[in-house]
């Protein structure tokens, strides 16, 4: 179903918003590309036809830098900067696909999958599932551990539901609520492993300041926030025993 939904969008998701600036030329995996100054390496990579996998980034929102799957290597720089938060520079030589990057991305994906309903990893239809397919990481080696699989689904809103079991805490919904809709109804509550998306002060969506605009649902990369109409016969939440 995801590919059908995705095909409805003609445009490419460049990951970060476009900028107006002087032309900057760099190479991504050897492919020369020219973008506006102030653009992200992620945008340049997408423009060069060498898109980098991403989860927390989408070009309708400002870069955030939380998901850590879009790491790249840049010649002459230490470490593995996130492509979404790294601005382009003239002559930069970016590599998006090295064995080391694959190793780190796989490591990050394992962490996501260690707190995601196992029965929904395969055959799903979200951006997360696209990244699972691209990276080839569909399982993890952490064994059963602390998780959010038993967190109750919030189906108070008549149009969409929120299943925290599938949430990867990328804050795309929170940011969409702020940046796209200007409603500021959503936030992250708690910290560390306890961090979770909540509406207002941890209220059901329907009782919160949410105006049901749907920006968060559109922004969600995992179908944790998802339209109810997609589920004929009702939504089936995760089985905590499958952790």
């Amino acid at each position: 179903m995801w590919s059908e939904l995705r095909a409805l969008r003609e445009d490419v998701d460049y990951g970060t918003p476009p900028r107006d600036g002087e032309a900057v030329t760099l190479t991504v995996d050897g492919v020369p590309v020219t973008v506006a100054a102030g653009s992200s390496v992620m945008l340049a990579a997408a423009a060069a036809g060498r898109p980098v996998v991403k989860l927390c980034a989408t070009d309708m929102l400002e870069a955030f830098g939380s998901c850590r799957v879009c790491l790249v290597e840049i010649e002459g720089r230490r470490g593995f900067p996130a492509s979404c938060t790294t601005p382009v520079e003239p002559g930069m030589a970016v590599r998006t696909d090295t064995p080391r990057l694959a190793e780190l991305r796989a490591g990050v994906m394992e962490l996501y999958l260690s707190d995601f309903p196992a029965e929904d990893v395969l055959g799903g239809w979200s951006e997360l599932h696209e990244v699972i397919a691209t990276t080839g990481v569909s399982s993890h080696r952490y064994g059963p551990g602390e998780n959010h699989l038993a967190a109750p689904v919030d189906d108070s809103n008549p149009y969409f539901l929120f299943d925290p079991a599938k949430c990867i805490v990328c804050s795309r919904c929170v940011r969409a609520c702020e940046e796209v809709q200007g409603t500021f109804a959503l936030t992250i509550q708690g910290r560390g492993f306890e961090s979770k998306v909540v509406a207002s002060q941890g209220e059901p969506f329907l009782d919160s300041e949410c105006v049901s605009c749907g920006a968060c649902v559109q922004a969600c990369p995992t179908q944790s926030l998802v339209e109810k109409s997609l589920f004929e016969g009702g939504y089936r939440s995760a089985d905590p025993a499958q952790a």
Partner: protein
Amino acid sequence: MVCVPRDSTALSVGADAVAAAIAAEAVRRGLPVEIKRTSSRGLFWLEPLVEVPTAAGAVGYGPVEPEEVPGLFEAGFLQGGRHSRSLGPVAQIPFLARQERLIFGRAGVTDPQSLAEYQAHGGLAGLRRALSMAPAAVVDEVHASGLRGRGGAAFPTGIKWRTVAGAQAPCKYVAVNADEGDSGTYSDRMVMEGDPFLLLEGMAIAAYATGASHGYIYVRSEYPHAVAALEAALATLRAAGWYGARVQGSDFSFDAEVRVGAGAYICGEETAMIESIEGKRGMIRYKPPLPALKGLFGMPTVVNNVVSLASVPAILDRGAQFYADYGMGRSRGTLPIQLAGNVKRAGLVEKAFGVTLRELIEDFGGGTRSGRPVRAVQVGGPLGAYFDASLLDLPLDYEALAQHKGMAGHGGIVVFDDTVDMAEQARYAMAFCAIESCGKCTPCRVGSTRGRELIERIVRGERPRENHAQLLKLCDVMENASLCALGGMAPWPVLSALKYFPEDFGLPSERQPAHVV
């Protein structure tokens, strides 16, 4: 006159009760006794440390219990008389005599709230000299001193200031990081409680040098005495014309305010601190942009640790070269080292870089409090590496420690004897990260909990080889893929514990990970 400290550490062991007992006994005996409440010398095992000025210098008594006070009077302590608690001339106590106190020279000597005493002991000389110089020259002076950030990252302070000074903006800020959250550290607190004018002087110099007009001091909520001390000292400086509009009649105007944290370790990270000062959830901002160019409220901001700024007045007063003459290699000046944990003499040791861990722990600290052999030392806070006893001759030097994948950090040293369970310490490092993670990036948010679970499994003997291999993979991901140093460094104590103490995990020592150097 009798001096009784009012530092939090002294208060926690009954300094107020001792001061009250001295006052009551003086009344009972009809003796006019002036009690001066000072800051602490930082000789914590002797607190409450009562001092009496004599012609031969201050003599000390400690630790003093309130019920020992009548005996002190009997012994004639007001004239420096001998008593079983006598420590002799305080300045000659070896722990103190062997220090090089450029920052803590007034500690235990002055009344922290007396501007007159502050100035009588050299205070404001640095700011006076700075105001007589061009701002750029002040930046050059700090740069030439070799001062590096004392919060942990050790970034050259002069370069940071130069960046802010060179930025064009409608306004600029100085933000002091006083969210001192590293376990076993207290030097920021001692500055703020014991010599608040020093921090405020350093802050004003930073503002003058960089063109900042307003400052914030972000103090952790666990430091109520520091907050009160800073508020009072700010009011005093304003009244005296050292803060506020047109400082001392010059064209330089600067004021500051105290902001109190809400109990989050992560707000000691500069970008999370900035978010918190702005009134938001304390979450990490990605860099660039650097706070020096786009920091607080989007403006160029000097973010400095308390000790960094407290080092600045001496640099301006006595010159960059004077300061740079202390230290070794690229680590110049002095560092207030904070001894804690299982150590006989816990306290503050301000010493030039180059002092070895062994000198600090054995000569200053007197070895373990338990009397058992030292087995492990954690340097640089909860994210610092654990060293075993074979590395005690390492000098305290940013580069030397980095070679062993350690760090000086904020100067905290926590000592453990041979009863320590290093697997539990490693587990705690991950558990700490899990609790204190801001929750933004996945390697830290999820990885820390997975790390704790893996260590628990290894210790229980569940598939130790596989879980150990997975733990190393996880540490690699956290180190290289995290957004900030909390997730990036939480593996350090874990990897060092695995390297030096594999037997505590039930792992054979030959299975040391090759990439851990």
